[in-house]
């Protein structure tokens, strides 16, 4: 390893050869401002197009200013990061970017969490001296994501997430010069592309160009309607991130405060998606055991490995890109949809109402969930099981809008019966969690023995693709885990090539799983935020009295009173689904 010495702002620093000025400065505690640069550390995604030019610095002996994010250090280099020339250039660059940006900060969905707005405040921009043509594009409203490309600054982070991390390939830079913009092929709408709605483009967009569809207005209206019973469910990952929107440290668990906030908002019943996660384990775990038992009994027709099916971005992905393999994933619906289905049947009967008078709302760390609940197969006579889904960010907005002081809210418990859950359900929010929950239950059902230790450390972690095996009393169960659709694609290619010996694979579309979802408070490119949320999730699990899904007393009762047993005819009807071949038919293949 070759080391080189350089001076930044007259201070000496030693770095490895190949290090950029941006990173060398960081070593000295100097934060050089950027708009397009993004580094997702452990996820091995570094985006440095050098496009925004906000990070320019002066290098002694160099004629022009250098972009710090894309310029490598050399021996004896002398860099100034904040002299007059640099500060003026940065401000000019920003004024030029703003000269082609709408001035609607007051009413923009991103206001308050916008990197461009923050930068303008930081640089003290007070006027836009440049006047000229402005880019105008037709807004694109899909069921989950809104694109308003007038607000795009061509940082192209979304493109990197869509292509390099997710390998979905919907977004690309098109045209050139002033006309250039990021768009799907032939400038189609997202709805007419192969977009999975994973929302990672939204999660990294520095401006209001990419945002989620907002259902808060509809929700306020429904809450005020005395004729409607409004039921809410909250996904596991929400409680590990919601606090960030109120200035709490990443990784602060706010389960109790979230419950009391929802109750104060006026929901008639505050329930937990975690209940449905336990139910998912009963169904998905039984399906896995069924496939395994048949496989071990010599049945060559049985489809293995079994893939999880909780993640709607992932479901969209294989329907578009691997439709010929759509018989491999579990047929179990996602927890969001299982919850809706049970709420509008079992629970509606219990409180003597009907599905038309009930509104089921979900709070999700996800934007793909917004699309998932609109799927036709999850409707009964046109009435959806889940009426709509709001993101963690939308819930935070609502709490702020209704004058609640989040920090001083009391800690409250979920309502019964659909609010009771186990530790196994909580970990659904992180990569590795769904499969660990499934293993806890499948092990006990398969062996008839009680687990001494429910923590399966070998399934945990942050690596994009992980492999582990679990000993089911002499039978070795091989497990694969992937988060990020690019990593999922690798595992799928292996299966296709017959090179996969896994029995079960868990897939989540987002970095870190749902905790890094497209609907969470923005991490602004800092992956340590996602890791802190992961820690919180495992902490919540460890603190639960019951940590195995099949021991949830209300799940047992649900089967006794209503569903009979896992995979029963009724369970199939209400809790399972089927998948579609969505490969674009107008693609000329042969």
């Amino acid at each position, binding site marked *: 390893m070759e080391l080189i010495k350089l001076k930044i702002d007259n201070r000496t620093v030693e770095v490895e050869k190949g290090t950029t000025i941006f990173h060398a400065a960081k070593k000295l505690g100097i934060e050089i401002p950027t708009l397009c640069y993004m580094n997702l550390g452990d996820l091995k995604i570094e985006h440095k197009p050098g496009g925004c030019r906000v990070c320019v610095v002066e290098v002694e002996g160099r004629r022009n200013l250098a972009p710090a994010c894309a310029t490598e250090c050399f021996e004896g280099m002398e860099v100034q990061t904040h002299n007059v020339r640099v500060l003026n250039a940065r401000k000019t660059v920003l004024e030029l970017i703003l000269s082609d940006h709408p001035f609607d900060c007051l009413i923009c969905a991103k206001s308050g969490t916008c990197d461009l707005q923050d930068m303008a405040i930081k640089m003290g921009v007070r006027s836009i001296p440049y006047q000229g043509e402005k880019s105008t594009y037709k807004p694109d409203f899909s069921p989950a994501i809104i694109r308003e490309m007038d607000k795009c600054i061509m940082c192209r982070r979304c493109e990197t997430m869509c*292509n390099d991390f997710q390998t979905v390939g*919907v977004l*690309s830079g*098109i*045209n*050139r010069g002033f006309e250039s913009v990021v768009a799907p*092929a*032939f400038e189609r709408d997202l709805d007419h592309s192969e977009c999975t709605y994973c929302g990672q483009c939204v999660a990294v967009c520095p401006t209001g160009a990419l945002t989620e569809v907002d259902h808060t207005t509809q929700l306020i209206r429904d809450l005020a309607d005395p004729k409607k019973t409004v039921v809410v469910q909250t996904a596991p990952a929400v409680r590990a991130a919601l606090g960030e929107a109120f200035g709490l440290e990443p990784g602060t668990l706010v389960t109790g405060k979230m419950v009391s906030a929802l109750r104060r908002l006026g929901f008639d019943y505050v329930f937990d998606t975690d209940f449905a996660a336990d139910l998912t384990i009963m169904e998905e775990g039984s399906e896995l055991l069924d496939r395994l038992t048949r496989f071990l009994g010599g049945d060559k027709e049985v489809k293995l490995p079994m893939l999880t099916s909780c993640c709607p971005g992932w479901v969209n992905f294989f329907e578009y890109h691997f439709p010929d393999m759509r018989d491999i994933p579990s047929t179990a619906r996602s927890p969001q949809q299982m919850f809706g289905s049970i709420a509008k049947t079992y629970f509606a009967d219990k409180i003597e109402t009907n599905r038309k008078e009930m509104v089921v709302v979900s709070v999700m760390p996800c934007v793909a969930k917004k699309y998932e609940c609109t799927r036709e197969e999850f409707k009964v006579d046109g009435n959806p099981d889940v009426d709509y889904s709001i993101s963690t960010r939308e819930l935070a907005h609502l709490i702020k809008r209704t004058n609640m002081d989040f920090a001083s809210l009391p800690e409250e418990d979920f309502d019964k019966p659909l609010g009771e859950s186990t530790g196994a359900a909580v970990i659904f929010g992180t990569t590795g969690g769904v499969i660990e929950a499934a293993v806890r239950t499948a092990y006990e059902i398969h062996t008839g023995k009680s687990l001494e230790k429910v923590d399966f450390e070998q399934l945990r972690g942050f690596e994009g693709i992980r492999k582990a095996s679990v000993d089911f009393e002499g039978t070795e169960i091989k497990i694969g885990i992937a988060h990020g659709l690019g990593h999922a694609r690798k595992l799928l290619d292996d299966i296709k090539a017959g090179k996969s010996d896994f029995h079960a694979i868990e897939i989540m579309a987002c970095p870190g799983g749902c905790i890094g979802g497209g609907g969470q408070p923005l991490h602004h490119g800092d992956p340590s935020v996602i890791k802190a949320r992961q820690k919180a999730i495992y902490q919540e699990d460890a603190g639960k009295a019951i940590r195995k899904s099949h021991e949830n007393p209300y799940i047992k009762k649900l089967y006794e009173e209503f569903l009979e047993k896992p995979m029963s005819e009724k369970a199939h009807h209400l809790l399972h689904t089927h998948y579609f071949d969505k490969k674009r038919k107008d693609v000329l293949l042969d």
Partner: protein
Amino acid sequence: MTSVKLKLKDSDVQQLKEVAKSFNNQPGELINVLHKAQEIFGYLPAEVQEVVANELNVSVAKVYGVVTFYSFFTMLPKGRYPISICTGTACYVRGADKVLDEFKRLLKVPVGETTEDGKFSITCLRCVGACGLAPVVMVGDKTYGRVTTDGVKEILKEYEDEV
């Protein structure tokens, strides 16, 4: 986008697939394959771009990004007699702009488009390396040098009787 799907000739699609194969179906050969594709089809409609994307295993969005970046690539069909007017520096200072205006006026189409009967299309190009003949106009493979505005009508006349 257009909802009418263009049916490409099977033999042309086959030829394009062979071109992609001759480049080992390498994603890095995208521009080369697009050049050949435009030679085969005359232009690069969405359907052709989808074949290219599929053969080279790159996203259609990426292919569309490259096609829209380079002015050489076109998504509009050319006329049977594609007219190219050089607007490079030498041609320009010797009146290429006026020649171009005259073509636009007589054919009633803007640059980059094709006449309604599909006979002529107008494009601009930059320097064909015949600056001594400036301003230069090409119709198909045929080159016309020292073209004047009055000469435009004469050039078009040559193609009048053709069907």
